């Protein structure tokens, strides 16, 4: 197995994602945590691109990186005063959390690597957006019109709920 460009890109993305996600949860400053989250989301978008899911990557960039992160940043700026530094945790709690997470990680990795999946193969080739659109708007088998509509209603409800909750009384 030779080292291809693909692999190199993947490795870079992987290191980038892992480092960013660990930093996102360990950094003391909340604004930095949001920034690292943004990096993770970017990396995830890169992985989608690498999987030839450009549409998904684009959505990830648009909604997550573009929308949600901005929301985070704004809310951080709105809410943090001096308390933007994460307070010092008790060692025992930190240790308990770390231990649980590590144990889970080990078990999950063990399961993932030990498990024999279906025969997997990677096919190059972009998924055409028209196919996505047809599928999303179709009521047939493998059609997603219903979840699509439900999501739209959910988003509407969210908008209304967000306004209701956050508005000034």
């Amino acid at each position, binding site marked *: 197995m030779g080292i291809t460009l693909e692999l190199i890109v993947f490795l870079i993305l992987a290191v980038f994602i892992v480092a960013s996600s*660990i930093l996102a949860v360990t950094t003391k400053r909340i604004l930095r945590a949001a920034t690292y989250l943004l990096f993770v989301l970017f990396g*995830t978008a890169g992985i*989608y691109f690498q*999987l030839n899911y450009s549409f998904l990557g684009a959505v990830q960039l648009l909604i997550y990186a573009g929308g949600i992160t901005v929301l985070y940043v704004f809310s951080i700026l709105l809410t*943090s005063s001096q308390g933007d530094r994460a307070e010092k945790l008790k060692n025992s709690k930190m240790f308990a959390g770390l231990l649980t997470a590590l144990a889970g990680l080990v078990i999950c990795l063990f399961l993932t690597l030990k498990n024999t999946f279906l025969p997997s193969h990677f096919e190059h080739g972009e998924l055409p957006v028209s196919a996505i659109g047809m599928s999303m708007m179709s009521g047939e088998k493998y059609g997603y019109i219903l979840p699509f509509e439900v999501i739209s209603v959910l988003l509407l409800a969210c908008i209304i709920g967000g306004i209701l909750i956050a508005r000034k009384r």
Partner: protein
Amino acid sequence: MIQMEYYLVVSTIMMFAGIYGFFTRRNLLAILISVELILNSVDINFAVFNRFLFPGQLEGFFFALFAIGVSAAETAVAIAIIINIYRNIRNIQVKNMNELNG
């Protein structure tokens, strides 16, 4: 050739990083960020499984797509709630949220 497991390892690490953050952070927004990490790792898994195991179908793809939408909605509402809390107690540290404590 990139094995599927490589992607899964990355997403698993991301997921447990999120879980660790969820356990240890004391700021509501930081906890929410951790939750985003967890969701994101699951999205990766969906996409990867779809691509490698069922290339002819689109279930994983759409699941990831909708999960992004749902998480956007979730984040919006959660942030609205957090802002509301902030407005009430001028703080979003978890330890201060004890109004409903018996």
